[in-house]
C-alpha cells in the first residue's frame, strides 16, 4: 500500500499535468476551431480585395 506522502505527490503531479495534457491532446488531435481557422485563412487567401479599384469606383460615382 502506498504511503500518504506518495499518494499526495501523485495527486499533485496529476493536477499539474492536467492542463498541459489537455493542450497535448488538442495539439495531437487538432481542435475543430484550429481547423476552422485554417480553412478561413485559405478562403481569405483566395479572395483578395482591390481597394484602389474600389476607391476609383467611388470617385467615378461622384465625378471626382
Amino acid at each position: 500500500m502506498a504511503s500518504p506522502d506518495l499518494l499526495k505527490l501523485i495527486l499533485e503531479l496529476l493536477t499539474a499535468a492536467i492542463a498541459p495534457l489537455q493542450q497535448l491532446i488538442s495539439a495531437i488531435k487538432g481542435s475543430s476551431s484550429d481547423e476552422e481557422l485554417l480553412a478561413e485563412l485559405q478562403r481569405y487567401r483566395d479572395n483578395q480585395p482591390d481597394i484602389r479599384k474600389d476607391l476609383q469606383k467611388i470617385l467615378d460615382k461622384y465625378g471626382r
Partner: protein
Amino acid sequence: MKKIILILVVASISLVACGGFDSAARTTLYTTKKTLDVSSEAFLTAVDKLAGAGLLSDEMIQKLPAVADSFNVAYKMWAAATDAYLAGKEQETRDKIACLVVALEDILLAAKDAGLGFGTDKLAAVVQLGRELLADYVGVCHG
C-alpha cells in the same frame, strides 16, 4: 507511475512550447485580415460619405490613392505571410509578418497624411500584435 507522469508533463510542456509560434502566427494572420477588412471598408465608406457631402478637397483626393495602395500592399504582404504559414515555412512566415507590420504602419502614415481617422486604433493594435509576435524571433523584411 511517478516517472510516467513526469515524462508526460515534460513532453506536454515541450510540445506546447514548440507550438507557440504556430498558434501566435495563426492568430495574428487571422486578426490582421479581419482588421484590414474592417479598416478598408471604413476607409471606403468615409470617402463615399465625404464625396457625397461634397467635402473632399482636391488635396485629399490626391492623397487618397496612396491610402488605397497602402491597403493593397498590406493585403499582398498578408497573402505572402499566409502562403508561407500554410506551407509550414516558419522562418519565411516570420519574415513576411515583419513586412506586414511595416505595411500596416504605412497605412497609418498614409491615413494620417490624408487627414483621415478611420479605424486606425484597431490597425495600431494589430501592428502592436505583430511586433509582440516577432519580439522573440528573428524576422527580417526584405521589401
